[in-house]
């Protein structure tokens, strides 16, 4: 025992020194150090880290990037609880709204005023999340929805003239007809054939992940929304609203052109399912271009979503926010500008993941060319389907302005499981849950 004590003491001292050394080194390097939290794939991580590196080289500001791929808000919540919030990061709109009200986020309005290099008018209007006179955050990037299809499947079914411009969009009935031609059973018959066997489908005409995003896209095209026109009058339960959900249910149970969520469980990811012809069309967000582009065997095309009463496009995006606990909000603001600029994080835009948040990149040819010129990630028609509508006819997602958006979906979507299972109609389900929904339908934030 006597011998060991000095050794133990030495070890402890050595440990302390080792722990202190890095701290000293960092302190000498830079005065400002930011913590930046974000989510994303490993691909995104590489691009974001490169952008951060160039930011540090340019400004001398140290940034510690922290990727949180899952349970992002849970992790952030615990960081806030431990008084260890990041300086700057991504955030989903409903949570951003709450945390802004609770005083955890900086009013970005002031940063706009202090920074002459950017103006509010530069941005796509809905990308700026306003609350009263304040600004909660600015969307880092935009996302919108489209139909992606397997060219091979379309060729085989003899379908050409795929609409890319909004005015040429298929009506819903035309879309169902196309989907039926593309749904093929194991004997090779399509869904229009009277002998078609819906129990053994080899290739489904269409697939859509059943969450609020693509439904918002379709709701808008049927002239409604959770709260149409950002009003306080809800669309939920109205015929136009219910109709959209019922139409999707009918794709599964009446037309047999779309897998039920259970059947979809056994399918590979959309990119592989398109390539292996399990699906002929996929309704999804444009970020999937980033997954589609690297699969060389997949020749895919892009089409307008079907039109019901309108062709207005919906867009959404994660917000960039700055935390009140940050000692360097201006530096954090600069970092956000840098990471989300098309010139700096070119790959994120060009390789398919993001769409820009500033207007100029949708109207100025040189700027459009930076991110949307033709490539594996930006196939022919991309511009008609996804670029132009954003500036000419689009609306921001309800996530940004609908009060209790998350709580409403927590009730709506589990209840809709009964519809996807083919047990009830949308009208029945919505009538049943309306008493639970009513206290949550508090209108729009603005």
């Amino acid at each position, binding site marked *: 025992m006597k011998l060991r004590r000095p050794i133990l003491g030495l070890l402890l001292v050595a440990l302390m020194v080792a722990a202190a050394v890095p701290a000293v080194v960092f302190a000498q390097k830079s005065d400002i150090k930011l913590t930046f939290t974000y989510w994303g794939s490993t691909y995104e991580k590489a691009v974001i880290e490169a952008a951060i590196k160039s930011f540090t080289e340019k400004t001398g500001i140290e940034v510690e990037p922290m990727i949180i791929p899952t*349970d992002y*808000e*849970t992790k952030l*919540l615990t960081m*806030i*609880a431990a008084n260890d919030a990041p300086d700057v990061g991504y955030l989903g709109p409903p*949570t951003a709204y*709450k*945390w802004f009200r*609770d*005083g*955890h986020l900086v009013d970005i309005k002031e940063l706009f005023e202090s920074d002459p290099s950017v103006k509010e008018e530069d941005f796509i209007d809905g990308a700026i999340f306003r609350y009263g006179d304040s600004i909660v955050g600015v969307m880092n990037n935009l996302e919108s929805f489209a139909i992606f299809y397997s060219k091979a499947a379309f060729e085989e079914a003899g379908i050409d003239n795929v609409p890319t411009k909004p005015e040429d969009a298929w009506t819903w009935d035309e879309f169902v007809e196309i989907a039926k031609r593309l749904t093929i059973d194991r004997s090779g018959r399509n869904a229009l054939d009277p002998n078609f066997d819906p129990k053994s489908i080899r290739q489904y005409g269409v697939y859509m992940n059943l969450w609020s995003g693509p439904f918002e896209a379709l709701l808008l095209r049927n002239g409604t929304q959770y709260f149409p026109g950002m009003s306080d009058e809800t669309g939920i339960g109205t015929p136009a609203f219910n109709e959209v959900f019922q139409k999707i249910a009918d794709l599964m149970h009446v037309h047999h052109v779309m897998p039920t*969520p*259970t*059947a979809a*469980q*056994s399918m590979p990811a959309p990119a592989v399912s398109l390539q292996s012809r399990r699906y002929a069309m996929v309704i999804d967000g444009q970020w999937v271009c980033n997954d589609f582009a690297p699969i060389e065997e997949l020749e895919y095309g892009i089409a307008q979503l079907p039109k019901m009463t309108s062709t207005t496009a919906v867009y959404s995006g994660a917000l960039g926010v700055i935390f009140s606990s940050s000692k360097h909000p201006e530096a954090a603001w600069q970092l956000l500008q840098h990471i989300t600029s098309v010139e700096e994080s070119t790959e994120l835009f060009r390789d398919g993941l993001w769409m820009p948040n500033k207007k100029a990149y949708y109207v100025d040819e040189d700027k459009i060319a930076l991110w949307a010129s033709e490539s594996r990630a930006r196939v022919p028609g991309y511009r008609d389907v996804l670029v132009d509508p954003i500036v000419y006819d689009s609306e921001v997602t309800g996530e940004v302005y609908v009060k209790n958006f*998350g*709580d409403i979906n*927590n*009730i709506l979507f*589990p*209840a809709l*499981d*009964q519809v996807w*299972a083919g047990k009830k109609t949308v009208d029945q389900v919505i009538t049943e849950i309306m008493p*639970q929904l009513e*206290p949550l339908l508090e209108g729009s934030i603005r």
Partner: protein
Amino acid sequence: MRKEEAYGYLMAAPAILGFFIFTLGPLLASLWLSFTDYSVTNVYKFVGLANYKRLFSGADPFFYKSLGVTLYYVALSVPITIVSSFLMALLLKQKFKGRGLVRVIVTMPSIVPAVAVATIFLWLLNPDIGLFNEILRALHLPTSQFIYSETTVVPTLAMMNIWTMGSTMLIFLAGLENIPEQYYEAADVDGGGPIYKLFHITIPMMSPTIFFNLIMGLINGFQTFTQAYIMTEGGPNNASLFYSVYLYREAFTNQRMAVACALAWVLFVIVLLLTLVVFRTSGWVYYEGDRQ
């Protein structure tokens, strides 16, 4: 002697401090927070019993639903696990060649991380390409939607729980090894068969172990989280919205930490009451040396 005593406390200090700081502290804090409107990010205020009222009045549509789902799961999984692991322990107590190896194989699944088990079962239970339905089809038996149907999801998860019976079975096995051989020998002399021995020696002698496993099973059953969180996210139509999943969702997704604290305390009281009831009705448990 005194010094030794001091060292004793010193050595135990980390565990004692750990309990007070990291267990008892948060426990009491959560009790206090359940009477506030704490959401982690807000400046919270005292709201009295509002959170509890919200739960019991049914204003939150998921409280009774999740309670019902959890009770149903406990009622299914606890007996299934106890009976199956007891039978397995009886089997593994027999002397046969390779017994050690079989014991290891049966115990192993319980050390596989729950997330890995859940992920593998997602494949096995897949209605279209999963192994279970393939087997049923090959035997010309009706197939099941398993975790994808409201009616079968909870029974499926309860059955899946058998997979991790290893630890319960080990406790039973230890208990079985402790039964004195003389009892069986005496039964042999009196001409008692194996069934007689099972019901008149093994089960009565094992009753304290069964009792222990019953209590632990109840407590664990009420806290079931992982399978539902990973495999079903509470669906379909909230049919597997276990209490703990709902609690987690309230705390972190819906950011109503105070409601989650109230939920935790309600669960605590429920489990406490149930355990008391089980203790009160434990006349069937036989303790050697006790007066019956």
